[in-house]
Each structure stands twice: as structure tokens, then as C-alpha cells.
């Protein structure tokens, strides 16, 4: 379970004057979902393209290890959903899937059989002879997702799988990604949908301007870098909040106050220490979400 399937070591890539990826290292362990996060233009897609062997790195190494044997890039054992979506517009769904499956080393018969099963699961069974251009955007995305997993890869690389999907389909994709993980696939997931990443990923790698910002277990990162958000509704003098050194980003609006507890402030002790003179109507203390962690890290407030 925990052996390393993908290892990226000090990989760099320069485009003209821009250092797109700068000495980045991370590893994906067998059977886990590793989140690859970062703002637009941070170097995610470039990193993924280097992993896929589409563009070569300027420096550094990328190693794969399947069944305990270390190899170079073995395109038949990796599945890829690119960020840039597109398939042959004028070709038919099943034909395209069989062709792409055959390029991954599947026999035509097996590719056809498995493609049909997946189309069934994605509720597209009646579309197999439809031309790609006549599918809706969501349907096209499902077909492309099937193309990425049809050959049962050991490592699956998903670049923005949820982009452009409605919430119902996002749920469907999330379920299927989780099922694939449970079947033993190792998944590298890049997404801006923080709630999905939070629900799916075991660990994350956050990249910004080509460099690593955060890397590790999601819960541990939250513990180390997160801050608690507090929402309070009360009657009484709000003056006690203004002097408090332990809080920041205070917003007062009538009887409502929202603020953030500085790192290291224990929420339990903070609440117990609130003044007797105010009457609390509502109080909510939130464990930091990945969203806040991301924003803080990228805007440079993470320590």
C-alpha cells in the first residue's frame, strides 16, 4: 500500500525566461490520492506533462515503480485526463474509446467490452454511436474520463476533472474516483474544487510560482498552518474585541462579529475566557478548511 509509485525529484522546467517549475520534489504512494494544488499558472500542468512524458524536464528525475520494479515512463500503465479537453469531433464515441484504448496496448475486443461497461456506468450506454460533437459538454467530459481509465492504469493523473461539471456530475466523478482508489489505483488529482480535494485527498502538494509551498498530510498541514475562524452574535459592548491581541481580521456588523484566532490560540480556552458582560446569542468556531489554507499559503501568510 505505502510503496512509492511515482517519484518526482528536483524537477525543473524553463520556458523562455519563465521558470515554470523550479526544483520540485514529491512522491505519490501506492493506493493514495495526492492532491496537486496551486493557483492558475503555478506550474501544475507543466509538472503533469513532464510526468506524462509529453515534455522532457530540463533537470531532475521522474521515476515510476509498478509491482516493486522501478521503470521509466511506461505510458501503458498511466492514465491521463488533460486539462485541455477535446476528442475527435466527427468520430463516434465507441470508436474513439476503442482507438485510444488500443493505443494503450488493449486488444480491440477488450477495449470495446470495457468501454461499453464504462459507458453503462456513466449513463451513456445509448450514446455509443453518437458523434462526439453532438454530445453535451458534461457527456464529452465523461467520455474523456473513460478514455483515461479504460486500460486500468496503475497511476491515474487527473487535471481538473471537475471543471465545467454540474454538482450532480461532480458527485458522480467523486464517487468513481474514490472507487478507483479503493481498487488500488494511485491517483494524482489537480483541482480548484477545494471541497472535492478535501473530501478525496490523503495528502496534498501545493505549488506556487513553480515552487513548493506546502506538502504533506492534509490534516497535519491544517494543524500546522490553519487558523480558526470565529463567528459571534452577541449583545453588549464589543470593545473587548478591539484590544484583543489573540485575534485578527475583525469585522463588526451590528451585533455580529467575525474574526480569526491567531495561530496557536486554543479555541477552547478562548471561548471560556470571553467576558461575562456580553450575552452570546450565536457562536461558531470553524476548523480551517483547505480553502483558507490555500488562500493563506498563496497570499504568503502561511508560516
Amino acid at each position, binding site marked *: 500500500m505505502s510503496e512509492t509509485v511515482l517519484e518526482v525529484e528536483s524537477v525543473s522546467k524553463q520556458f523562455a525566461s519563465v521558470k515554470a517549475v523550479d526544483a520540485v520534489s514529491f512522491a505519490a504512494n501506492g493506493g493514495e490520492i495526492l492532491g496537486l494544488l496551486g493557483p492558475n499558472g503555478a506550474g501544475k500542468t507543466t509538472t503533469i*506533462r513532464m510526468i506524462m512524458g509529453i515534455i522532457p524536464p530540463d533537470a531532475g*528525475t521522474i521515476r515510476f515503480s509498478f509491482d516493486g520494479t522501478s521503470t521509466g515512463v511506461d505510458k501503458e500503465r*498511466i492514465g491521463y485526463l488533460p486539462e485541455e479537453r*477535446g*476528442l475527435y469531433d466527427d468520430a463516434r464515441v465507441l470508436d474513439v474509446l476503442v482507438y485510444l484504448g*488500443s493505443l494503450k496496448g488493449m486488444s480491440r475486443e477488450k477495449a470495446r467490452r470495457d468501454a461499453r461497461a464504462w459507458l453503462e456506468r456513466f449513463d451513456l450506454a445509448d450514446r455509443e454511436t453518437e458523434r462526439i460533437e453532438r454530445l453535451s459538454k458534461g457527456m464529452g467530459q465523461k467520455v474523456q474520463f473513460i*478514455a483515461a481509465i479504460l486500460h486500468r492504469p496503475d497511476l491515474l493523473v487527473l487535471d481538473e476533472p471537475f471543471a465545467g461539471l454540474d454538482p450532480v456530475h461532480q458527485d458522480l466523478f467523486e464517487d468513481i474516483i474514490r472507487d478507483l482508489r479503493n481498487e488500488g489505483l494511485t491517483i494524482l488529482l489537480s483541482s480548484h474544487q477545494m471541497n472535492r480535494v478535501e473530501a478525496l485527498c490523503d495528502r496534498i502538494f501545493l505549488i506556487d510560482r513553480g515552487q513548493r509551498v506546502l506538502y504533506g498530510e492534509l490534516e497535519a498541514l491544517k494543524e500546522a498552518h490553519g487558523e480558526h475562524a470565529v463567528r459571534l452574535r452577541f449583545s453588549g459592548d464589543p470593545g473587548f474585541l478591539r484590544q484583543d491581541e489573540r485575534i485578527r481580521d475583525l469585522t463588526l456588523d451590528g451585533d455580529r462579529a467575525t474574526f480569526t484566532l491567531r495561530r496557536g490560540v486554543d479555541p477552547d480556552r478562548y471561548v471560556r475566557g470571553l467576558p461575562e458582560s456580553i450575552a452570546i446569542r450565536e457562536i461558531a468556531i470553524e476548523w480551517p478548511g483547505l480553502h483558507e489554507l490555500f488562500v493563506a499559503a498563496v497570499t504568503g501568510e502561511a508560516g
Partner: protein
Amino acid sequence: MKLRRVIGWEFTRTIRSAQFLTMTILIPAILTIAAFVVSLALHGQPLVEADTSEPIPLVVALVFAIILFLASFLSGVMTLYSVVREKRSRVVEILLSSISASTLMAGKVIGLGIAGLLQVTVWVAAGYAVASRFVPVSLGLLTPVEWATFPLYFILGFLLTSALYAALGAAMKDVQSGGAAGLLGMIPVIPMWLSSAIINFPSSLWVTIAGFFPPFTPAVMMLRIAAVPLISEGKLAVPLWQIALSLVTLSLGVYLVMRFAARVFEIGLLMYGKSASLREFWRFGLRRGKRRQRGERSA
């Protein structure tokens, strides 16, 4: 094995397209039927009486040379369109995650080439059937030298044009934009603009030299081989050493252009949003080798 699948896919897709079916079946069929109707109206009388002094055998070779050249040019253009379309639909990224850029390029060039060959065969057969109703022509009128060299010039010329056009397609944003493509794409066509000069002065120094310059070789040499006997009324022919040398330089040219094109193809395909300039095009083709070696060593 994967190359075969790419070839099969490209070939089937092409011959199933409406454009190909129209050009290959519908139009030749209509023209052939129309010609036969006309010939029946003329009570099957040939327009020209068979006369051995007419230079028809030589003209046949000339027409054949031009058809072969057009065929390799057209399948090159088909390759260019196919690459640009695939690039625009972003499907290349998925393809490159399964196969190498050079396999993709080779598959396209060969698959579309076979489709192009099929098209030429239909045209030649239809043209021959029609022409023979009116004038006494026969493919048997081609000389042994023509039979031996034309297929070679055709295949090599086709490989060179298609590889060049595949690279141009990869470096273009869309088919309207110029960039490097506008200029470089014109090179193989130049002999056709000058074809009347080549036919009239097939042994002049410049035409002879042009025959050894790979992008021009197929068109110039086929025209020369057909035209030299025509001009000299059958007394002269292109010297064999010139034919041999032109085939050597052409083969070398094909090899170099294909290598160059594969590199441009690999870089150009993932360059979205703008067309490569002539300088970039050049740099892609020449620089890529070193980088790839480095990439492979570290992978």
C-alpha cells in the same frame, strides 16, 4: 504495432469523410459517365485518329508526372489540415500520453498517404477510361525508365512533402494564420509555377541543378524525364547518372526533413495560441535533439 493502429485510424477516418468520398467517388463517377455519354453521342468515333507521328506517348508521361506531383502535394495538404484540426481539438495531448510524437507523425503521413494513393489510382483509372474513348492513349506508352523512376519520385516526394506539412501544421495556430507555414509550404510548389519553363528548357543548367535540390527533385525530374524526349523528338533522354544522383539527394533530403519535422512536431503540437515564426520553427527543428537525449537519460 501501435504505428499500425494509428495508420489504420487515420486511413479509415479519411476515407470515410464526406470530402474524400466526394473527391474520390462522386466527382470522377459523374465526369466518367458524362464523358461516356458524349462519346456515345459521337458514335464511338475517336476525336483523333491513331497516328504514330503524334507525340501522344510523350504527353502521356507529362500528364502522368503532373498527376503524381499533385497527388503528393494534396495528401501533404491533407496531413497539414489533419494536424491543425487535431491540435485545435486538443486531442493531441491524449495521443502524446500514449504514443510518441514521431509515431503519431509517421502514422499520419502513412495513413493519409495510402488514402491519397487510393485517390490518385481512382483518378488515373477514370481519366484513362475517359481519355481512351477520345484519343489513342495507353499506359503502355510509358518508357521503362519512366515506369521505374516515377513511383520512386512519387513516394519519396510524397514523404518529404507530407513530413514538411505535418511539421508546419504542428507549428500553426489555425489554417488561416501564416507564420512559418505560409512561406515554407510554398517551396514544393515552386516547380509547378515554373513547369512551362521546365518543359520547354528541360536540359538548361538551372533546371538540371534544381533537379538535385530535394524539395524540387520529384516535380523537376519527372517533368524533365518526360520533356527531354518530347523536345528533342525522341533523340535525347535525361542521363542516367543524373537520375541516380537525384534519387540519392532526394533520399538524403527525405531523411533529414523527416528528422527535422519530427522535432518540430513534438514541440509545436503543445504550443497553443500562436503560430511559430520562421525563426522558432527553425530552432525547434535543430535544437530538440540535445534536449531529448537529456530527457531520456534522466527518465
